[in-house]
């Protein structure tokens, strides 16, 4: 009973905090409203007795929002990130898409005939989930991991205005590299 109440309170908190992302007028508040939303979801996952996944969700999301604060300054420049600003853009289309997606998902949830439970959950649900994800689908997971890493690196490379020729000279032979910000091990 208590678990049910906690679950629903967390669910409402997660949705409200998620909505707050668009109500507030500062990027810092939007970022951390999203973090609060994810923390509520993480605690819900804890209630589902997926301890590892719940705690890791909280860990990753808080860190992610902090990193977002770094990117905020790195890529947006100081002013737009630090001044009060609207968190919504292109309201008309966004509203139409949001309502459409919500109706489709809600209709799906309500109209689909849910199957009755067959069998019981495993003793160690985290291990079972890991087996399910990583066992037969290990190749997909490994490939997705590499693709994600490559995407991040490529995104930063495309966004950075200095290339390797700026760092190492036209023949790529200048050592140490000519960086505006020297590193700690003197490369």
């Amino acid at each position: 009973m208590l678990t049910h109440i906690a679950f629903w309170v967390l669910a409402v908190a997660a949705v409200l905090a998620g909505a707050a992302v668009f109500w507030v007028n500062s990027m810092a508040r939007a970022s951390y409203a999203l973090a609060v939303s994810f923390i509520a979801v993480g605690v819900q996952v804890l209630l589902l007795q997926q301890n590892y996944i719940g705690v890791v969700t909280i860990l990753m999301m808080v860190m992610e929002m902090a990193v977002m604060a770094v990117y905020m300054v790195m890529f947006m420049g100081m002013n737009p990130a630090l001044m009060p600003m609207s968190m919504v853009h292109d309201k008309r289309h966004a509203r139409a898409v949001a309502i459409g997606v919500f109706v489709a998902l809600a209709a799906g949830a309500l109209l689909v005939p849910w199957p009755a439970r067959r069998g019981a959950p495993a003793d160690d649900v985290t291990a079972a989930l890991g087996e399910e994800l990583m066992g037969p689908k290990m190749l997909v997971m490994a490939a997705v991991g590499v693709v994600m890493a490559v995407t991040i690196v490529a995104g930063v490379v495309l966004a950075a205005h200095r290339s390797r020729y700026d760092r190492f000279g036209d023949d790529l032979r200048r050592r140490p590299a000519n960086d505006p910000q020297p590193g700690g091990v003197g490369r």
Partner: protein
Amino acid sequence: MSDSAITTVSAGWATVAAGLLGLLAIAAAMLDGVLRTRAAGARSLGLSVPVGEVARLLRQRRRTTVAADRLLWRIGGAGLLVMALMIITVVPLDRWTLVDLDVGVVWFNAMDVLAWAFVWLTGWGANSAHSLVGGYRFLAHGLGYELPLMFALVAPAVAASSLNVGAVAAAQDDLWFVVWMPVAFLAYCLGAVAIAVWGPFSPALGADIAGGVTAELSGVDRLLFVGGRYAVLAAGAAFAVPMFLGGGAGPLLPGWAWVLVKTAAVLGVFVWLRRRLPAVRPDLFMEFGWVVLLPAVLVQDLIVAVIAVGSG
């Protein structure tokens, strides 16, 4: 390796745990006061430095800044203390623990990451350039220390093949982990000092930026933030005991006393190091963290994993 050796105590004991953490934090503040007084060459011992500081801050009027983001500012300032309390819920005092979480090691990690949010939010909330610069200095440090800290925690967990803090402590019956995974221990200590914005990682509070994150903090807000730093330092020291220093193992004294003695010893070293180590510049440390520290910790993890597989 018996998990049943750990007893989960009732929630009422949380106040005792919080009190112990408070005592450790006060002791750390007193030691720092003594060291500060000695460094200044004053005649008095300096034990009362924190008392005077607390009295001063409690009477101080709150400073306000224009267009401060008060909500986030207050959350950030009070957060470190909350973070320290959350950390010690999974640290066993020999046989007793508040929460016997099966993923306690990850729990510590999730809580230490909160420092990123709280310190940056404190820097952000004041709407002051200096404190915001301080907040970003901390994040820059964070990018350097966090991954080595995470992988340092992997080593004891792999060796004990458990993420339960009590089980990790119990796995060190014959040999403390600090002996055969020293690199992980050092990386952990670096991270524990860093989440308290302490010692080498204090440029976020640097005098060159008028106190950085704390530039605009005053009165109770400053008391909470500064006290929170000591509490996080104490919690970091306490977590090192079951992870690397054998938990309650030791001769003569009972286990709980050994846990406290070891915690106090680690905490004392942390406080003492503040005046012994130079501040690390955030921009330089970032590369050091990724090019030196992270590979070193990964090699440590590999060695531990090979030994664990070989002996298991």
